[in-house]
């Protein structure tokens, strides 16, 4: 393998594609004008921003005027929740979300609870799916927002967004979805899916870090929280991250153009990995829905061993992955997502997430199918929990 790393953590972040980087470059040193300036250098920047905005709109089936650039997916999530809550608090104070959202949603909801809002966290089944029945039962007269993530970052499960959107529309309740992991992997049409607000983040689909967007359907009442200049239709101040925006536009254009072929390739790698690991390693389970999951997402738990050790050993052979174990997250509890799907603590601690991307190959899969069983075996030989099971035989 030499010194090449096998990067299998695309859900955490992706490299910037060369075409995206090329598109961004002129906007640092040459075409650097402030888009709010009157002279032509400024107007050119404005034009570049509006072109990028059109690309984002096209990718979502929205109008350009409904796209607002933010610093990140986290900011988009914060704005959607806090902004809708603040603007609609006379109508009600109840928000419905799920138990498996990204921390940018979870912690914002917790914050809003401290500010007098009531939040229902819908449970999920053992595959990580939200139930429409539970949603229907949770709705009250005071419900002002439903926020359910499109696809989960850890276990890959894709939610029934179209049904949720249809229901929310029928009830006249605003529907937000954190689509950060879904862009480029699932076709999104905000009209068809009755989505009112949507968060996305550039660095998950081969764009730069530090740029995201919030889609806000025309007519949705939302308060601002970055006050200042009149940028982004007066709703989100700050001089625009020009290169970032251009990069985001290019990246989302590439992502949607090539989605089918990309997904097909990822699916092959995913399936070979899941089947390969399951056939080579005993006491193993797949986390998340078997088929209704992101095409590049593999999340397995290996009993009797712990995730951080697994990652360290993978790192030693040049493989980058992630885990839902407590040790690897720095907290005492394993991932809330794995807990929500009902995994016992010790199984959650032994989880490994591998997420494929553009540059991965079948050879990468060959390598990990060869090496992961060895690593698991080695860690099991060190584990008092495996010893207990071995001795029972």
């Amino acid at each position, binding site marked *: 393998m030499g010194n090449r790393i096998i990067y299998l953590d695309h859900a955490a972040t992706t490299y910037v594609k060369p075409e995206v980087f090329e598109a961004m470059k002129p906007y640092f040193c040459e075409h650097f004008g402030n888009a709010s300036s009157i002279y032509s250098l400024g107007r050119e920047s404005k034009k570049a921003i509006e072109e990028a905005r059109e690309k984002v709109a096209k990718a979502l089936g929205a109008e350009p005027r409904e796209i607002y650039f933010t610093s990140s997916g986290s900011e988009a999530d914060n704005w959607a929740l806090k902004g809708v809550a603040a603007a609609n608090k006379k109508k009600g104070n109840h928000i419905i979300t799920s138990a498996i959202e990204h921390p940018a949603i979870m912690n914002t909801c917790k914050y809003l609870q401290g500010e007098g809002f009531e939040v229902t966290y819908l449970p999920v089944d053992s595959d990580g799916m939200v139930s429409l029945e539970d949603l229907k039962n949770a709705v009250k007269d005071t419900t002002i927002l439903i926020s359910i993530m499109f696809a989960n970052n850890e276990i890959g499960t894709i939610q029934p967004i179209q049904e949720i959107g249809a229901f929310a529309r029928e009830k006249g309740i605003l529907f937000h979805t954190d689509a950060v992991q879904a862009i480029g992997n699932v076709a999104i049409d905000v009209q068809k899916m009755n989505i009112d607000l949507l968060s996305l983040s550039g660095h998950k689909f081969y764009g730069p870090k530090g740029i995201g967007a919030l889609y806000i359907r025309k007519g949705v009442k939302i308060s601002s929280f970055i006050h200042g200049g009149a940028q982004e239709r007066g709703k989100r101040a700050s001089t625009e991250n020009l290169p970032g925006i251009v990069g985001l536009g290019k990246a989302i254009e590439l992502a949607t153009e090539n989605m089918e072929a990309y997904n097909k390739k990822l699916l092959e790698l995913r399936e070979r990995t899941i089947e390969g690991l399951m056939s080579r390693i005993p006491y193993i389970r797949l986390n998340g829905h078997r088929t209704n999951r992101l095409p590049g997402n593999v999340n397995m738990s290996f009993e*009797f*061993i*712990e*995730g*951080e*050790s697994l990652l*360290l*050993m993978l790192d*030693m052979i040049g493989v980058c992955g992630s885990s839902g*174990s*407590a*040790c*690897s997250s*720095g*907290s*005492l*509890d*394993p991932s809330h997502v794995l807990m929500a799907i009902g995994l*016992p*603590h*010790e199984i959650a*601690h032994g989880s490994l997430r591998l997420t494929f991307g553009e540059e991965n190959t079948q050879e990468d899969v060959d390598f990990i199918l060869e090496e992961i069983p060895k690593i698991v075996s080695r860690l099991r*030989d*060190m*584990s*008092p*929990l495996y*010893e207990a099971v071995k001795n029972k035989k």
Partner: protein
Amino acid sequence: MYSQKVMDHFSNPRNVGEIEDANGVGQVGNAKCGDIMKMYLKIEDNVIVDAKFKTFGCGAAVATSSMATELIKGKTIDEAMKITNQTVAEALDGLPPAKMHCSNLAEEAIAAALEDYRRRNGLAANESVDCNGCCSSCHHSEGREDNFDEDED
């Protein structure tokens, strides 16, 4: 994150295994917090002639187990009792603050195994040194109070 010594003890752990005729065995930690250490001791004439371990846990957990067994081999029981989590952490050139509790576990595993030896030889009351992290009354969760803070995260 981890020192070279920690990575060495993690990738080449010393003394992994079981001792069939061990006369002191201690297991501490729990699956809930993701760290379990089991220590086997062979004690003859008051000296720890052999020590082995099995650990379910992170890089720091494996490294501290490995270092702990190295530190106590050849020591008398009294000398082994003096080994603290600080000794283990220092021998590894330090641990990140969030991982110091793993060194606590190593200290406790030694104590548990020695406790077991004493119990088998009729020398100790039936105290348990198992930690389930419920409180700090036994001081076993000292240094990691933050990890039990509900408000965090």
